[in-house]
């Protein structure tokens, strides 16, 4: 199981003929993802060639528009590698084509462009993930984005993270501790985005394979505080462990991610840790203790044996 994407998800790659997109298309194919089409305006008729996980040749056809690609292939998801100044438009094109899941990897999309995108999403069926995120990976089935697949092992822990590298770091620690994962979802480091912690938590709550969740947050905004409250009220049966980065971040400084900024004294790591602890969620002391903290949480909930899958 897992959430949002699986082995049957039919994926198009927007901006597929770009260097990074072509590289990651190969990686996604090799992981087992069903890439059925690519989109680059003006490049219809070309193909992007790769190999699937069994080593068979795959020729991914390129179309001019998302609509053409969907009509020809029945795709239901998209991953976007389009440059920042065109990315918001690409997201809206994918929403307009009524795709179920749209993942946007692109960093540095202007915030006011994302405000428009969020307005455009209202009343539409699409679940947008990102932007400025590493994507989503359901173990051994499918990945959309840039997450390195080999560190993931099948299991029962869901991972939600605002940071790309911390998703890899945390998953690496989980796998090393023998704790496999259902789906890892990078929700992205931007202030205005498609999916936030609560949205992802709701999906994991309804996934019978996911028995526990790891949340990786950082300074800026109050999504972690909101999530803590939501977990207490709505998900008593699935334990959650967490990590928050940016304890030492000075106020008013943007720490790499557009959304990672303490403004007006709000959005500090201390506040987030306090809110999580207050509802009984263990927060790892340092980034090196994420794996240990999850193990501790699973043991406390009596599901360690069940979750020790690899």
């Amino acid at each position, binding site marked *: 199981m897992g959430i949002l994407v699986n082995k049957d998800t039919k994926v198009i790659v927007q901006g597929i003929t770009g260097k990074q997109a072509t590289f990651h298309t190969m990686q996604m194919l090799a992981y087992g993802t069903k890439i059925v089409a690519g989109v680059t305006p003006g490049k219809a008729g070309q193909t992007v060639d790769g190999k699937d996980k069994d080593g068979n040749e795959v020729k991914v056809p390129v179309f001019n528009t998302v609509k053409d690609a969907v009509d020809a292939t029945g795709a239901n998801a998209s991953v976007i590698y389009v440059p920042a100044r065109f990315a918001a438009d690409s997201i809206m094109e994918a929403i307009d084509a009524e795709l179920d899941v749209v993942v946007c990897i692109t960093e540095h*999309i202007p*915030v006011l462009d994302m*405000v428009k995108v969020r307005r455009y999403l209202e009343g539409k069926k699409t679940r947008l993930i990102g932007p400025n995120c590493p994507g989503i990976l359901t173990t051994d089935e499918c990945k959309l984005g840039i997450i390195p697949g080999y560190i993931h092992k099948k299991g029962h822990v869901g991972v939600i993270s605002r940071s790309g590298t911390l998703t890899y770091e945390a998953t*690496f620690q989980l796998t090393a501790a023998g704790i496999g994962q259902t789906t890892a979802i990078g929700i992205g480091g931007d202030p205005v985005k498609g999916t936030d912690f609560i949205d992802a938590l709701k999906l994991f709550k309804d996934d019978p394979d996911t028995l526990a969740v790891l949340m990786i947050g950082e300074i800026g905004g*109050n999504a972690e505080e909101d999530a803590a409250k939501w977990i207490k009220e709505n998900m008593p049966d699935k334990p959650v462990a967490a990590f928050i980065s940016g304890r*030492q971040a000075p106020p008013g400084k943007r*720490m790499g991610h557009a959304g990672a900024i303490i403004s007006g004294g*709000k959005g500090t790591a201390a506040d987030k840790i306090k809110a999580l602890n207050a509802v009984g969620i263990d927060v790892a002391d340092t980034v090196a203790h994420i794996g240990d903290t999850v193990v501790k949480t699973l043991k406390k909930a009596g599901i360690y044996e069940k979750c020790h899958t690899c």
Partner: protein
Amino acid sequence: MNIHEYQSKQVLKSFGVNVPNGKPAFSVEEAVAAAKEIGTSVVVVKAQIHAGGRGKAGGVKLAHNLDEVEQFAKELLGKVLVTKQTGPAGKKVNRLLIESGADIAKEYYLSFVVDRQTAKVVMMASTEGGMEIEKVAAETPEKIFKEYIDPVIGLAPFQTSRMAYKLGLPKPAIRPAQKLMSCLYNAFIGKDCSLAEINPMVLTKDNDVMALDAKLNFDDSALYRHPDIVELRDETEEDPKELEAAAADLNYVNLGGDVACMVNGAGLAMATVDILKYFGGDPANFLDVGGDSNPEKIAKAFNIMLEGGQSKGIFVNIFGGINRCDQVAEGVIAAAKIVSEDGKSMPVPVVVRLEGTNAEKGREILKNTPIKNVIMAPTMEGGAEQIVKLVNEAKA
């Protein structure tokens, strides 16, 4: 990106926002000439630095004649102003704003920001003008009023009207206040601001409404479509290392300490700063080298960390995802060639932790090309602990 108050007011004026008559001055002579030209009985001499809290720190003076203007200008230009927002080092005043004095009846607060939760621009206003809005929000949140703006419709007249009445403005000031709000919103949208703040917005004794102070911050991701704003950048207000890093496409924040770190990914970079502190270190910086870490970029990063003798030790913490550990290892070797005389040593201890894509290969490269002072760490935890220990030993 931030700009000065006088620049903010020039931008706002071009959008029709009512601002006091004013001119920037870079010297005492210019200050006096500007005051003469403005010609009001009272002029305000305002220090221009990229930080708030200037009034309380003595950076804003009321002058009643040209002699006073000259005196205050002499006093402020070149002075290091320490405000609540500058930190203890303060900021040197290189520019002044000379402005006509206003006859203030009451002060208000007005701002626009993007609200993360609703993904909408929100207009916030308060009757508690001239105060720190964070303090008002904490102590008397009922005195802050908000209007969420539909991006398709824009700021509607009923919203500015509702806000003006909530603020309790006198009848003749309602329309001027509404105009100021909508002009400020247009500037916010038109220039891709991340913050537009008027504190205080003042009601004058003849029922006019104007922006007495103004602060605009801009969304860095949108600067490509505002070359006029980019030109307003004052690099003397920024950390030289941060500027150098930005030019090399490195995400760097100077934290002032002596244990440096070089990391890939913003989240892991923040977490690395935290773990250095956890083990008792004093972090020198946040540094995210990003996803495409070629050897030249890594070498540049080392240069910046070592500049000025700030770093007494460096922790390289890499989890290879898109970027590959072998490239980072090559980068460390390339850096040694640049930063040392013999080309194969580091001036301070460098502890390297490589994990993820091509980690084995990276470790192999560093094993085969030994560089003095470079130590491989078996784990992240061990590496962080070790570099802090080495720096503390060197200091003792």
